[in-house]
């Protein structure tokens, strides 16, 4: 899970945003550091929607905000239209900001309650001194109209007179008014009712087509992200686990964590029984002290000794599907192929830490019997959730 590497980055010219080796650390007190985002790389092509999914605390919002330099990342590069945003400061950075806008989760608290909607949506234009007052008003009206609000009615009202869904439309209008290239949507529908959520998702799709927008869509809801994305990146504890097109990712997840997430989703159909429990026992480990090797190993049903020692590199397991896992569910490893020798791969995996990808290929035929044992043992030892420390299975796995 601890996905490092850049194998999934694309070389083509139409990449609008390219983030490489992004690291964001926060001071954790007593000299410790919170490793919120640890060596994450991703890219977004023009007019594409990248979905970032993961549980709370996995660093998805932090990664997106680091793109905006809010705050600036600890290290790594953020190339936006070819310019490195991490290398510029002050006024030079400020002039880049109109290109990238953000829509936050809670629409009501992200609007100033004392301003009118016209003021709120027009503020970016005033700050950037775009056009005459009359032109600005026309622009505001156009943006309000684009998000499905009647400018005549809404312009003079204040945020408290609107419902949550309408407030989110106002936030989107405000993000649109400077004609940005990239909009980061940080859980834009999580605070909304299902019926309103559908309206906002449809609206974002319409606006994307109409204005040629590029979106980074952050959410914890896998069904939502599937609906809007062209490419989905799954994050866990500051790392990327898997990145693929949505239809592929949902049909055949390669990372055990993606599979666990997918099977946890409640399906609105009583005939479908979710077989969720046991797959991901326990809570997210603390980013103050992340597990060694693969960060997912403490909750992974397929974890081996190798996972504790060696950090998996992102590699392509199928066309357009990239995964950071030693024992992915898709690709060269056939998970059902049970072979006898279980001791061999653990020692060779531990020693061969330097051999990386090729080592993975070689050892794979022998490994599967190991993971399936672990899958049976781990959940029964630690029922529904011993976290990181002191759980019985951990000592063996940590090696």
């Amino acid at each position, binding site marked *: 899970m601890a996905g490092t590497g850049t194998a999934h980055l694309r070389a083509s010219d139409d990449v609008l945003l390219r983030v490489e080796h992004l690291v964001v650390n926060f001071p954790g007190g007593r000299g410790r550091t919170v490793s919120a985002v640890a060596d994450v790389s991703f890219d977004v092509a023009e007019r594409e929607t990248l979905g970032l999914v993961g549980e709370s605390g996995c660093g998805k919002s932090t990664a997106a905000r680091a793109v905006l330099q809010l705050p600036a990342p600890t290290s790594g590069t953020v190339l936006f239209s070819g310019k490195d945003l991490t290398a510029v400061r002050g006024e030079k950075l400020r002039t880049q900001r109109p290109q990238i806008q953000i829509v936050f989760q809670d629409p009501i608290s992200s609007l100033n309650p004392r301003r009118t909607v016209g003021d709120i949506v027009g503020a970016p234009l005033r700050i950037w001194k775009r056009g005459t007052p009359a032109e600005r008003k026309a622009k505001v009206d156009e943006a309000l109209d684009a998000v499905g609000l009647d400018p005549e009615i809404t312009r003079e009202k204040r945020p408290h007179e*609107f419902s949550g869904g309408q407030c989110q439309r106002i936030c989107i209008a405000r993000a649109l008014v400077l004609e940005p290239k990239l909009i980061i949507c940080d859980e834009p529908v999580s605070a909304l009712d299902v*019926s309103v959520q559908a309206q906002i998702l449809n609206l974002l799709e319409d606006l994307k087509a109409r204005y040629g927008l590029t979106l980074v869509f952050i959410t914890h809801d896998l069904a939502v992200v599937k609906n*809007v994305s062209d490419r989905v990146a799954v994050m866990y504890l500051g790392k990327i686990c898997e990145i693929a097109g949505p239809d592929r990712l949902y049909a055949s997840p390669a990372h055990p964590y993606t599979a666990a997430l997918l099977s946890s989703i409640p399906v609105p159909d*009583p005939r479908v029984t979710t077989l969720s429990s046991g797959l991901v026992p326990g809570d997210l480990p603390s980013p103050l002290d992340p597990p060694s090797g693969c960060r997912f190993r403490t909750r992974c049903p397929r974890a081996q000794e190798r996972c504790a020692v060696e950090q998996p590199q992102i590699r392509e397991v199928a066309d357009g599907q990239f995964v950071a896992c030693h024992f992915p569910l898709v690709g060269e490893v056939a998970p059902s192929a049970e072979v006898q020798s279980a001791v061999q791969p653990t020692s060779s995996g531990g020693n061969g830490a330097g051999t990386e990808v090729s080592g993975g290929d070689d050892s794979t035929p022998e490994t599967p019997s190991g993971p399936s044992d672990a899958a049976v043992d781990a959940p029964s030892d630690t029922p529904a*959730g011993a976290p990181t420390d002191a759980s019985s299975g951990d000592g063996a796995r940590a090696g």
Partner: protein
Amino acid sequence: MIRGRRRRVAPVAADYHQPGTRLLDVNDLKTYFRTPRGMVRAVDGVSLTLDRGKTLGLVGESGCGKSVLSRSIMGLLPSTAERTGEIIFASERLDTMGPEALRDYWGTQLAMVFQDPMTSLNPVMRIGRQITESLEVHTDMDKNQARDTALALLRSVHIPEAERRLDQYPHELSGGMRQRVVIAVALACGPQLLFADEPTTALDVTVQAQILDLLSEQQRERQMAVVLVSHDLGVVAGRTQEIAVMYAGQIVEQAPTQVLFSEVRMPYTEALLRSVPRLENASHTRLAVIGGRPPDLIDPPAGCRFAARCPYVQPRCLEEQPPLQEADTPGHLYRCWYPVGTPAGTEALERNLAAQLPQAEAAVSGELAVEAS
């Protein structure tokens, strides 16, 4: 905290411990709130029944009255509320009881798990004490027995290192662990009826699955009846025997879970189901939307309350309120003049499509209905 009080357990006849017995009977419950603008009819004439060991799902958008309904049954309403109607729990009338009498029911017979585990625990009280508090009030246990019971409870809700947790404070636990503690507190005195008010909304999807599994496990073991309140149809689909869909303070459709999903009659339920993004759909699938918003509950419309947003709406819907009527399948109730899946309903939808009614077109194609404010 409350020392030297008499043991407080409401007497309940022995046969109520048999599975399948009627446990809760609510008749024409109305809860109105007094506000400066007028009376808000938050719950407006709800009747329902619940048998022992069964789970009822309450679904609806925010503001539809589902939380107020469960709080009305519990008797946990602010002083601005006015409640009428009958609430019969294990043959006792709860609605006529004062708070003093209800205290004997809270915890021991009726318990509640709230949405936000962060705010429903006392931040300055140790976990153990939060559980033993109600045990000491409601049972004969002394301190040590209560502590042992609390430990057993924490283990039964699968909290690792339960012994250590007893002396920790809520902030030392993660959200999922805190919700487990809240469940342990609710289960401490062995309630017959548990209200779970959006118990997983504040939690991550993997934790949500664990908490829902835990609730159904505890329910099976204790033969408890559960009212599961949620806005997520996915959550209630797999976990309930019966579902009641609420809209604007009323139950608009109620049916056994299987029947509700396979034979939807109420256009609102259909619209809710359609607006949920589904995993099996290809990406960029257009979602069906419900335009507009729920009516003002101070002055609800004369006819059907969903009429203004309904794709099937006909003149009759605006004038006459449809009664809750029984469908062909027994136990399936709906509130509609032109129900989905019947000739009358299909005809009504076609007429609206022919007349290019915006909400009908939106429901079919998922096009954006412009919201007027």
